[in-house]
């Protein structure tokens, strides 16, 4: 992965965090990694824990960013989330799997939050 693309992803995740905090979420973890996979953001709001996947794109040449969250990716996030819950000993938790897509075109970035995706 080139540095530029990593930077874009990082920027996107920062923007997503800022957005979530603005919406009243509390960020619990960022870039949570375990052997099952990675979760970009874990945030909590109103007793509900959200596992958020952030996708950032510069153009629509390959379709909407949300299309990149494939079934395999969803399964990865699911198992990583389960591992996280076990680690933290948080059972009987209300869960939500969200996608935040960010489209950067020139100086304008558009953010789209899709809660309860999968």
């Amino acid at each position, binding site marked *: 992965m080139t540095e530029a693309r990593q930077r874009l992803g990082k920027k996107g995740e920062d923007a997503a965090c800022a957005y979530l905090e603005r919406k009243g979420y509390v960020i619990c973890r960022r870039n949570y990694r375990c052997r099952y996979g990675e979760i970009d953001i874990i945030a909590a709001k109103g007793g509900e824990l959200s596992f958020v996947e952030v996708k950032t794109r510069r153009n629509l040449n390959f379709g*909407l960013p*949300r*299309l990149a969250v494939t079934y395999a990716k969803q399964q990865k996030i699911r198992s990583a989330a389960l591992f996280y819950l076990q680690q933290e000993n948080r059972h009987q938790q209300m869960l939500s799997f969200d*996608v935040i897509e960010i489209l950067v075109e020139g100086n304008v970035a558009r953010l789209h939050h*899709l809660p309860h*995706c*999968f």
Partner: protein
Amino acid sequence: MYAKVYGETTCGINGEQIIVEVDISNGLPSFDIVGLPDTSVKESRERVRAALKNSGLIFPMTRITVNLAPADLKKDGSGLDLPIAVGILVSSGVLQQEQVDDTIFVGELALDGTIRQIAGVLPMILHARDIGRKNIVIPAGNCAEGRLVDGIDVLIPASLLELVEHLRGEKVLDVLDKEAICAAATSVYDVDFAEVRGQQVVKRALEIAAAGGHNILMVGSPGSGKTMLARRLPTILPPLTEAEALEVTKIYSIAGLLQRQERVMLERPFRSPHHTISSSALIGGGSVPRPGEVTLSHHGVLFLDEFPEFSRTALEVLRQPLEDGYVTISRVQASLTFPANFIMCTAQNPCPCGYLGDRKRECSCKQFEIERYHRKLSGPLLDRIDLQVYVPRLEYADLQSREAGESSAVIRERVIKARQLQLLRLQGTNLYCNAQMGRRELNKHCQMEAAAEKLLAKFFTALGLSARSHDRIIKVARTIADLDGSDIITAAHLAEAVQLRTSLNS
């Protein structure tokens, strides 16, 4: 957003309304179709997606769920593409719900958004009308079927975009004009009975068969003209009545055979399957049952040449439709009833070598060979054939005679007259000819003069007739009386009926 659109599918030979519900909700893009769709319906996802995109309309990148109700009915065919696409347009706000409420949509989508023709549109339109819908949208390729049905407005947009513009009121499509089903008075055949020399008895038998819808068996040595005669049977059949034409067209619409002919069935069907046909091809079959030859010859003629060469199972399955006039085919997926009211016309040789009973040539068959040949045709099957005639070899003089026989048109005239009497008599019963009469009609319409009754009683015991053949002889006698223009069955009518049935036995 939720949308509800109406579509149609076929079930047997009838249409069935399908409610297509579309729900669009936030989430990752997905497109699911639930409600027992078969593969061709599931594939409509890809067609709908591409058709919307290529029509310049928006395919929503969200979670789309399509439900096809009633959920217990198996849906097949590609005709649900259009209601699904319209449903998506309504739920994504391009169209309004009230713009599609009174309309039924039927059609397959091409990837560029044009609407392709599908099979089975006629029964769908009829059903839509019967449940009180005001409009139906069908593919332009099916417009011949659309013209047939009164009491419902039929629209034929060329493409999805045209339909959307129409529904939005931006560009109004013309309602398809209706066309009366006119009798095939103009039908042209390239054969005629006038070309057949001699064979007066067989011609008479065929005339009776055509007039009353009776089954006929022709037995004769090779080259005596059995097939030639049978091929001319359609030329003397009466034209289809409007109700019959609609029924036959419905069947051909479902079988997908209309597309090639691109017209309404105005002539009675004449089917002559090869003798290697399987029993399921004959009566219908398939995992979702499709009509077989007996149904395709509904209200027409099923011609079975080389009758004993058909497989035993194929012949025996004919027994039930011959008696009841319909077949019920049960498979895992569905159990369907198809109409099968046809004249069975069969031809065969008298023995394997073909010359048994011939005046000029010796039969070379052994007795057991002949017996085996005859055993292929079971008693119950032969019992259902009302007219059994021998087709004799022609003499040289017959062949050379310049005297033209009666033309098909003349015979047809008489047949039509006899049929009209029957239609009048059977009014309000859903029956069209004498052969279809049941016990009740038999008692009501077949008065015999005393001499005829006496004669029948004598024949019945002397020839050892079955109860079924008793009824069938009376029906044939009724037809002969109709040809004669007589209200009552006389002894002469009855005698001819008995003679035509039993002449082969001696």
